[in-house]
């Protein structure tokens, strides 16, 4: 009941609190410069409160919060006239010293001697002039109270029932004084708060200053946790990790509590971090509540998402260009070529290859394309439509073209005989897989079967493009951490791509990545198909299966670099060469890798 009262208090005072805060910040602006200087000199003062004109040391923060809490408790429970003397009679000597005047308020409460309120503007420092201006206002006492209670509401309305002790490694989190006591009170609190807490979060998280103060306070035995906004990002990451840990340990209640906390913290962030955190929080929630996403979505929808992803950032273009370069080199002398594409989608890779073949010295070879795709729910022949478009293009540029489409739920269902492979003397075969092989790792034996099928096709070259990350470890927390870092980099690169924020392309690209995140985090077993592995892991796998690497040439590297220069906008993208494979990354983090392979026992070399 007390909690409810606090919420109401917070809710009503929020409006006025923010009003006065806004006022104080506008009044304070001319002095802000001086304020900042002094704050920096003073050292150890909380910056956000300093903007408002309060000087509170970091070290005192917990103490001040506790005092405010006590004050608020009294105010909440006392009769109206019981505390009116606080508004008139208490002397505040240094209004910017929040700790000091709360203390004086408290001593007044305990010791209700009538003292004349004399708004002495204490020190000569200009900090006080901000509050001085406010204090001179006839309605000053009201405002002070409102300020106090709004501060308090900030302290209280934040997720206070969550057990933040579980978050590892956060320096601001003091150890709780009495564990058993807190736990029992917490449990009581949790059941009573229910959904009303969320409205409180809404108000405090949308506060103008965006201060992410979280207090876990009821009795004095409960730990008080305070942070300032700069640490919110760190706090966010730690909360995500803690939630993942809780999920791994099957402590779902704790995980549930933490997930909500993540949502709150994410709201105080901006840009890429907020989006990543939101997607991860959603995925964790799905895992906790076992609401698994439907994977049987319309494949054309995923195609559309991938198209937007193709437009927004250079990853797919890089993949296509580098793979095509390897294929072109392998096809240098062939008169008849056959490409098997494990994931045809919209066929965006092939126009460039056809064009390059058309301009080959001596003329183009006969080009045959076999495209493989997932079965369509509405029985429409999407593959055939793509094939038809490619045929039109081929006709335009004068390349002899043949197309076949195959629907397969999984690549492991394919048999080489189905694909009408012609002998290598007649036709050179290339197999191309862009972000397809990792799905096979969900099914035991899947990848081995596919690799042996590929060998049976006797390809001149096999091009593989995969995400450069290990999202297939045995432990959930490790996968989670890896994924968090990986997708943070990806989202960062999307932000830096120079596309205007409300663009549809950007939103759809984020959605495309979000679905991957959901799969990595929320799904298990056969459903978890986004089982990314690193280049090193793939290398081992390919070499064990009987393939030997083909080095990508320097022209592939050059074309990739130029592509980035033309399209990337941001300078964060980097092309790296890694033992004959090319990797595209954002700043120092490689994100996708292209590699090329041939059968290990080739008689004629290339």
């Amino acid at each position: 009941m007390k909690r409810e009262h606090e919420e109401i208090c917070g809710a009503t005072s929020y409006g006025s609190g923010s009003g006065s805060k806004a006022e104080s910040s506008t009044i304070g602006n001319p002095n802000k410069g001086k304020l900042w200087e002094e704050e920096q000199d003073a050292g150890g003062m909380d910056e956000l409160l300093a903007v408002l004109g309060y000087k509170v040391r970091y070290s005192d923060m917990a103490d001040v919060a506790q005092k405010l809490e006590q004050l608020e408790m009294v105010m909440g429970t006392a009769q109206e006239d019981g505390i009116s003397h606080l508004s008139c009679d208490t002397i505040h000597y240094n209004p910017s010293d929040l700790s000091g005047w709360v203390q004086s308020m408290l001593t007044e409460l305990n010791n209700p001697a009538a003292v004349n309120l004399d708004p002495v503007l204490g020190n000569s420092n200009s900090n006080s002039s901000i509050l001085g201006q406010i204090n001179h206002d006839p309605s000053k006492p009201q405002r002070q109270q409102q300020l106090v209670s709004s501060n308090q509401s900030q302290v209280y309305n934040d997720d206070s029932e969550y057990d933040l002790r579980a978050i590892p490694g956060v320096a601001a989190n003091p150890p709780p004084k009495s564990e058993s006591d807190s736990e029992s009170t917490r449990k009581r609190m949790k059941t009573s708060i229910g959904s009303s807490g969320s409205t409180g979060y809404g108000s405090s998280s949308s506060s103008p200053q965006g201060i992410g103060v979280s207090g876990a306070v009821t009795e004095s035995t409960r730990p008080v946790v305070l942070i300032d906004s700069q640490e919110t990002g760190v706090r966010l990451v730690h909360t995500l990790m803690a939630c993942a840990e809780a999920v791994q340990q099957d402590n779902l209640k704790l995980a549930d509590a933490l997930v909500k906390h993540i949502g709150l913290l994410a709201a105080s962030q901006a840009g890429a971090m907020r989006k990543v955190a939101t997607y991860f929080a959603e995925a964790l929630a799905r895992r906790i509540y076992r609401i698994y996403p439907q994977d049987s979505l319309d494949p054309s929808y995923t195609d559309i998402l991938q198209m937007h992803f193709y437009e927004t950032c250079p990853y797919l273009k890089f993949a296509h260009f580098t793979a095509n370069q390897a294929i072109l080199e392998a096809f240098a002398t062939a008169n008849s070529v056959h490409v098997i594409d494990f994931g045809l989608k919209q066929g965006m890779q092939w126009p460039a290859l056809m064009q390059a073949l058309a301009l080959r010295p001596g003329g183009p070879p006969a080009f045959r394309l076999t495209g493989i795709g997932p079965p369509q729910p509405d029985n429409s022949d999407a593959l055939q439509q793509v094939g038809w478009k490619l045929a039109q293009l081929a006709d335009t540029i004068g390349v002899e073209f043949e197309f076949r489409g195959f629907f397969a739920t999984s690549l492991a269902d394919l048999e080489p005989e189905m694909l009408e492979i012609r002998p290598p003397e007649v036709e050179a075969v290339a197999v191309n897989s862009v972000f397809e092989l990792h799905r096979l790792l969900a099914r035991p034996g899947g990848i081995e079967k596919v690799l042996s099928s590929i060998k049976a096709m006797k390809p001149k070259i096999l091009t593989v493009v995969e995400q450069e990350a290990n999202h297939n470890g045995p432990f959930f927390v490790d996968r989670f951490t890896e994924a968090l870092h990986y997708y943070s980099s990806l989202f960062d690169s999307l932000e830096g791509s120079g596309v205007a924020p409300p663009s549809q392309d950007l939103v759809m690209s984020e959605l495309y990545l979000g679905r991957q995140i959901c799969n990595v985090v929320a799904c298990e077993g056969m459903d978890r198909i986004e089982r990314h592995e690193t280049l090193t892991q793939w290398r081992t796998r390919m070499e064990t299966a009987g393939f030997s690497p083909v080095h990508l040439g320097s022209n592939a590297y050059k074309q990739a670099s130029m592509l980035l220069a033309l399209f990337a906008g941001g300078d964060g993208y980097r092309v790296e060469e890694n033992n004959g494979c090319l990797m595209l990354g954002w700043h120092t983090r490689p994100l996708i890798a292209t590699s090329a392979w041939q059968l290990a026992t080739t008689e004629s070399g290339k």
Partner: protein
Amino acid sequence: MKRSAPDYQVPGADQKMKKLKEEAQEERGLMNLDENLLYEVLKHVDARTLAMASCVSRLWRQTAKDERLWELICTRHWANIGCGTQQLRSVVLPLGGFRRLHSLYLWPLSKPQAASASSWAPISRMINSKPPARWGKDEVHLCLSLLSIQYYEKMNFTNRGK
């Protein structure tokens, strides 16, 4: 058999008279180059001048748009990519033409900021605002690929929902 005899009394005679008058007017001033002569002159200019020329008048625009001129602009300074002229034409023209190839891909690639953004930068001249002298093999291949992708994307995407 000359048809421009002014005394010729046929229904189209009035129109003929008008045309002759217009031509006479055009012959005044600097615009006295006829199409063929203009074409010959434009064969020798650089890309920037050619583009500016197309802004002068309708006749100039008509002439400056000629694919053969832009083909010269493109191929004059690019590395030999091994294919014949006819082969190149048969690919580039249907995919959008040389003018498009140049303005969309070759020109942006040759701009200083594009060159400096990539780490290896063989094209690194920054002399005034002149474009660099050459496009290497890789640049050419890249641009041709991008042209083909653009053409493909513009084809009717019946399968792509909005």
